[in-house]
């Protein structure tokens, strides 16, 4: 299973964290610090796996962002690379060539997308189209609620004029 997902910028700033195994806040900070030290310093041609505390961390760099997933020792590292890519492609389609700023200002969207891909540290959906469809449907639910709220507040605003 995937124990946690981390997105770290090249400067070591955290852009997304998702924990599927229990870690206290203190441990989380420590883990992030340790792993950024391990991963950000690795050279470009080396393999994408780091052994860490009996687990393996699979990472892949996209532009200035490192996508890291921590898996159990007997999980398939190559597949996890594909899962990372799967996630990135879905983000890319959603935001339209995604960049770090999108993930900063719309971090919650990235989380919503991740929640459609992974649950309990296991893969939920192998079709990018399905994920996009589900996210779009939920976004439109939010839109609809917003419009309704706006129209009600307009009515109130007009009525109290």
């Amino acid at each position, binding site marked *: *299973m995937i*124990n946690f997902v981390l997105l770290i910028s090249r400067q070591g700033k*955290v*852009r*997304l964290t*998702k924990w599927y*195994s*229990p*870690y*206290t806040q203190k*441990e989380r*900070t420590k883990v992030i610090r340790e792993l950024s030290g391990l991963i950000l310093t690795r*050279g470009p*041609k*080396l*393999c*994408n796996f*780091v*052994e860490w*505390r*009996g*687990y393996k961390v699979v990472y892949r760099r996209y532009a200035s962002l490192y996508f890291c997933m921590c898996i*159990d*020792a007997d999980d*398939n*590292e*190559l*597949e996890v*690379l*594909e*899962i990372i890519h*799967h996630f990135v492609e879905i983000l890319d389609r959603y*935001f*339209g060539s995604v960049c770090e*700023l*999108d993930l900063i*200002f*719309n*971090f*919650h*969207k990235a*989380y*919503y997308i991740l*929640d459609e891909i992974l*649950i*309990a540290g*296991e*893969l*939920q*959906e*192998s*079709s990018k189209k*399905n994920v996009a469809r*589900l996210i779009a*449907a*939920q976004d439109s*639910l*939010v839109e609809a*609620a917003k419009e309704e709220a706006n129209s009600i*507040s307009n009515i109130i605003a007009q009525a109290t004029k």
Partner: protein
Amino acid sequence: MDTVEKIVEEFASDIAMSPFSSGTRLRDMIRAIRACKTAAEERAVVRRECAEIRAAISENEQELRHRNMAKLMFIHMLGYPTHFGQMECLKLIAATGYPEKRIGYLGLMLLLDERQEVLMLVTNSLKQDLNHSNQFIVGLALCALGNICSAEMARDLSPEVERLMRSREVNTKKKAALCSIRIVRKVPDLAENFMGLASLLLKEKHHGILISAVQLCTELCKASKDALEYLRKNCIEGLVRILRDVSNSSYAPEYDVAGISDPFLHIRVLKLMRILGQGDADCSEYMNDILAQVATKTESNKNAANAILYECVQTIMGIEATSGLCVLAINILGRFLSNRDNNIRYVALNMLMRAINVDTQAVQRHRTTILECVKDADASIRKRALELVFLLVNDTNVKPLTKELVDYLDLADPDFKEDLTAKICSIVEKFSQDKLWYLDQMFKVLSLAGNHVKDDVWHALVVVISNASELQGYSVRSLYMALQAFVDQGSLVRVAVWCIGEYGEMLVNNIGMLQLEEPITVTESDAVDAVQLTLNRYSADVTTRAMCLVALLKLSSRFPSISERIKQIVSQNKENIVLELQQRSIEFSSIIQRHQSIRPSLLERMPVLDEASYLVKRASTTQGTLAADKPAPAVTPGGLKLPNGVAKPATSPLADLLDLSSDDVPAIATASTTTAPNDFLQDLLGIGGVNSSTAGAPSSSSTDILIDLLSIGSSTSQNGPPAADFSPPQATDLLGSLSSSTSISGIKSAPAVPQDMDLLDGLPSNTSISGVDNHSSIMAFQSATLKINFDFKRHPGKPQETTIHATFTNLTSTSYTDFVFQAAVPKFIQLRLDPASGNVVPASGNGSVTQGLSVTNNQHGQKPLAIRIRMSYKVNGEDRLEQGQVSNFPPGL
């Protein structure tokens, strides 16, 4: 930049819902934080925002709740405390609208984890949402439950999830299946409720459902034996069908990854097949054809394809595969290993680890490639390769392999040297057929990486040297020469100084020359020079200096002609601020000056100690052989014999546990606990007096002498100035008992010993986070006759639980019958023993008996595991009994 911001603004706007909102919007806050130049500025912004959010919370402003939650999540991600917002999550979840629920659940998953009591409060809302008519709200609840539920919630909400697995909605079904994985992980007892449902889901068509169901099945197999059997009976056909369909399917753009249809489903099915086929010939036979198809049909030029091949090879090696299939797997493995891509090479090494159980010969063929990988630029690859080399070593190839590794030691990264040295040492120790070779290798390792050698390794070396009387001359001469060249290698220096002190006359007179040796000319004063140089060079290392002083004292008796000069050197430390050195200096000077008559007998050579019993002790107390990434802090020289030393008071529940070898090693237990710290001076000095009696003493007690000698001052350097120099209250008793040859022992690690619990507490337990370091197996016990390995399997969600797979190997040439393994644990641990695979252990390691243990450490994170073990068996009808203590568990268990 502007356009990006604009787009961003649009997306961010749905967060700021209310047109009447006051304060900053989420986007503005993020921008303000990003604009901060210093950490202090950032803190100020965050503080201001938090204050506003708190105010909004206390005024119960519903309109801002949604936006504030988003802000809190961002602030949380930056690492600031956000606990005050936890209740807001619950309020948002309890709201009726979808937008509120969506952000509320996200906040719940981000800000809380399963250990917070607040989480219990959400159970009711979750239950309502699981029964909601809107599938997306059900989806949110399932997702949250699957990601953070605790055992209690799992129990409470399991019926709801079971019901949802029968839902008509695809989205709900797959989420419910994944959610059940978490539930089963938290409460394995519930596994049986899900197995029927899971096998039903395997008949679906939708890939999302299939993937989820396959993963659920995998988890069920791990959780329950009944479920494993059930799924073997009911699912194997379905699985083969799924794999065949997906592998034969024509191009499907929705699932296509680099020309392969749904590699994720491929891999997950293959993984489940491995679990089902393991040890089950019927199941394995059923999947032979499809595995062969996947292994041959998949083209290996893209990562996705390689991922499938990798999984497929692992499955073939894990099940009872036909020999043809194994050949196929081995060929793929060879292809992987020669690949230039580092990722592929890394996983190839992983595969080899598995292959070694299937076809050792095939793995041996790749030995040169593996050795190359040990020298790779990539630390991950090096580490894997080194583990593998360790498994590959046997009697025939040990010499060339060791040579390669030792040669590489010179070039290796400093970071890597420690691992490499540990491995070389254990290889050399394990396979040393001839002592000269062993000594040569050890001298090389000490010369090249003496600073990375662990204490127990060079202690063992000293034991070997002191036993090999015909090689002592050779040793001291080699070490003397090595000392000239590699004076900055700490443990080399210690061993060399010890040998010069003991065997000084062999050094200067070329005694015991071997044929291959060139004679060297060393004068008495050269030998003293060497020690003096070390004494001055290692001014900060108390242990080394203390050893130098002892060596000088010994030399003063070996070389009476220059004892005046030695006295001068020794007395230079008379005013040393380290009490330990000061005392030695003063006492030694007085021995040299005033007690010449007793000096020769006082300073005789150290008595030879029993190698076998030393090794047994070492193996049962220290990690000994297998890879240790970090030296366990507890394995100090004093720690070597702690288990014997902590036996006394029967009050503690642990005491009994720790008293492991009271039968084999009588007298030590009591002697060592009562002995005050650091009376090794008495030991050392007393040796001359009791020499004759120790010679006849039980071997175990003489072992202690050595350890005493070796651990000189080691506690001093670690624990600061010890209470050591107060003369020990039991000194007279001790000396009295010495002469009656019952026991000579003393414990050095003063602060560690007196409490019974310390053996266990002393083990590294601070890595409790996730609990782990890199080894998943240890050598739990080794004697001259029997070897026990423990393999560990952890349950990531439940760090307190560990499944141990014990393998017993017979090292003698007679097979053992009626073999029974027993284990005992302290009260805070629960233990369950599975039945053993047999009760006959075949001779000479031709096969072994295995047995499973499940342990639950109720004080996980505070106390490490400890198990006392006992093996009884019959050799040619004669009863035998062995016992030991396993405390070298990897940290974090």
